[in-house]
């Protein structure tokens, strides 16, 4: 479903080159629920933005659903984002000027779907996240957990092949986070492929597989000394 090979992402300024991802390799199979973890600045979000075709990469290969995406133009990338990918952001990213119904409708409109089909999909998605009764409410009238559920409904309404979640519970309290996590697990059980970036080990533990990123590279936790160094620092406050 999602395969990156020797992928790199370099941010260049006039004086310095910064590798956000370096020789990055990952292979997510269809139907997998993968948690991507790593310390702040490790490249998790960069990986997610490249995986979601939100930005381009500098080198290597990226196949999404069997398609090599590096040479696609902007319109083709937009089409793939719209049809194959569902995004769940940490800050929910609902459009404040639109009510719940209209928010969920946004990606469907860009797909050029007929109004009747849009309505059906929107109501189905809202039913699924338990917010059908809030269709006419505006985001500001909902709790954080409800807003994230709307965002999930928006991601699900288009029946994407891949769900990308960036710290989906990062802005929620424990109870709301648990509810959102259970919803993601339920969606996964129904066959969805989910890649979730998180730095919460408890959340990561609930995924099918964990991928750890340090300094822009996927590492094997058991063998990587940097992990042990990071763990020791986290527990004792002093380097090992």
């Amino acid at each position, binding site marked *: 479903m999602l395969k990156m090979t020797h992928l790199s992402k370099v941010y260049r300024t006039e004086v310095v080159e910064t590798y956000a991802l370096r020789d990055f390799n990952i292979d997510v199979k269809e139907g997998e629920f993968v948690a991507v973890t790593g310390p702040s600045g490790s490249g998790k979000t960069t990986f997610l933005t490249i995986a979601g075709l939100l930005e381009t990469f500098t080198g290597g290969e990226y196949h999404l659903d069997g398609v090599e995406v590096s040479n696609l133009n902007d319109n083709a990338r*937009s089409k793939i984002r719209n049809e194959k990918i569902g995004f769940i952001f940490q800050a929910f990213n609902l459009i404040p000027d639109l*009510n719940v119904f209209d928010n969920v409708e*946004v990606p469907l*409109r860009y797909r050029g779907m007929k109004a009747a089909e849009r309505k059906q999909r929107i109501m189905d998605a809202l039913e699924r996240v338990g917010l059908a009764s809030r269709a006419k409410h505006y985001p500001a009238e909902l709790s954080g957990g409800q807003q994230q559920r709307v965002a999930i409904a*928006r991601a699900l309404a288009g029946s994407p092949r891949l769900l990308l979640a960036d710290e989906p519970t990062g802005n929620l309290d424990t109870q709301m986070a648990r509810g959102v996590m259970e919803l993601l697990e339920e969606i996964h059980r129904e066959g969805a492929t989910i890649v979730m970036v998180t730095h919460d080990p408890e959340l990561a533990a609930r995924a099918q597989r964990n991928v750890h990123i340090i300094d822009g590279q996927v590492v094997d936790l058991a063998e990587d000394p940097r992990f042990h160094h990071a763990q020791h620092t986290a527990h004792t406050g002093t380097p090992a």
Partner: protein
Amino acid sequence: MMLQIKPILSALRRHKAGAVLIALQTALTLAIVCNALFIIQQRVAHLSAPSGIDEANLLVIENSWADKLSKEDADAQQRADLMVLRRLPGVQDAVASNSYPMRGGGWDQFITLTPDQTTAVGDAAVYLGDEHFMDTLGVKLIAGRNFRPDEIRPIANRENVMPPVTIVTKTLADKLFPDGSALGKPIYAMSNTPTTIIGIVDVLQTQSLADWQMRNAYQSLIWPMRLVGNAYYILRAKPGQLAMLRKEAVKALYAQNRMRVINDDGVMGYAEVRQKAYDSDYGMAVLMGVICVVLLAITAAGIVGLTSFWVGQRRKQIGVRRALGATRGDILGYFMTENLLISVGGAVVGVLLAIAMNLWMVTRFEMHRLSLFYVLAGVLLLLLLGQGAVLAPAIRASRVSPVEATRSV
């Protein structure tokens, strides 16, 4: 690119203040621009009204005698002047008259068909001239005949004499006798003595260009008289000789008799006559044009400013839309459609305002009714202006990267 009218309207409902302000600005601009364009068109039409004379080759000299002359002496001097002028090399013909087209004012007479008729059928400008008048001004005779020399008589200023024969313009002839039977018919000019129409000329514009006189603009008549005393000498130069004649004619007149006054501004070619006559029309057209440009510029600036502000404010939202599958074209279309909806709202109010403004001017300043064409032209202009103004910020919006969606504010 897809139409997104419903969600745009929903979003606009939550940004009423800015949208309403731009719509009102559009409405006000439309109302003023429609009326201003209409006024400009009327002034331009006024400016380009044909005079019916050979303007390119005409020279007007305002002649005043230094001494008070008797009618006989003045007549003799004028005959001598005309003889000198007609003999000048480069002169095709010359005439003395009380006035000339576009002068700005002159004699006019109410015309009736019977002496006891109390309501005038027409109001006509009166030109005095001898048998050289038509040839000098280049007026085209289309029916009847010119004056004979024996029909010409000298008159003094304020002398109230009715000539037995007259030549009229086609416009006046048709006004007086709509069946086309004017030739040979008597008419009355505020007198019990009739004057018979012996000739009809094609076009001869009146002296006055005042708005209230516009409906009479081509109702002119020529009487077979020479106004002796202070008068205007009108010279028709042979092609290419006009510039030379300006000096030579004045020099020749002084040589004939020094006891006269010809001021520098009393010698004019028709370019100057026309410029002087239409100065206020030209000024009004320019003023209205400037007002239109300034208003349109202010409205465009308002649209650019508000849209730029909205683009900046919604940067994250644009990123989210891009992340959810919007193409650059969709984002461009969003802002263009948003502006179109605001502009259409403004245009609806603006059309009503334009009509109301025009009706007020019709009753207050006797203006003409605003033509629908100018309303439609104004609407189109404002819509295009809006789309043009919104283009740059909309393009900037379309360039917002989808990765913006992942950035924390």
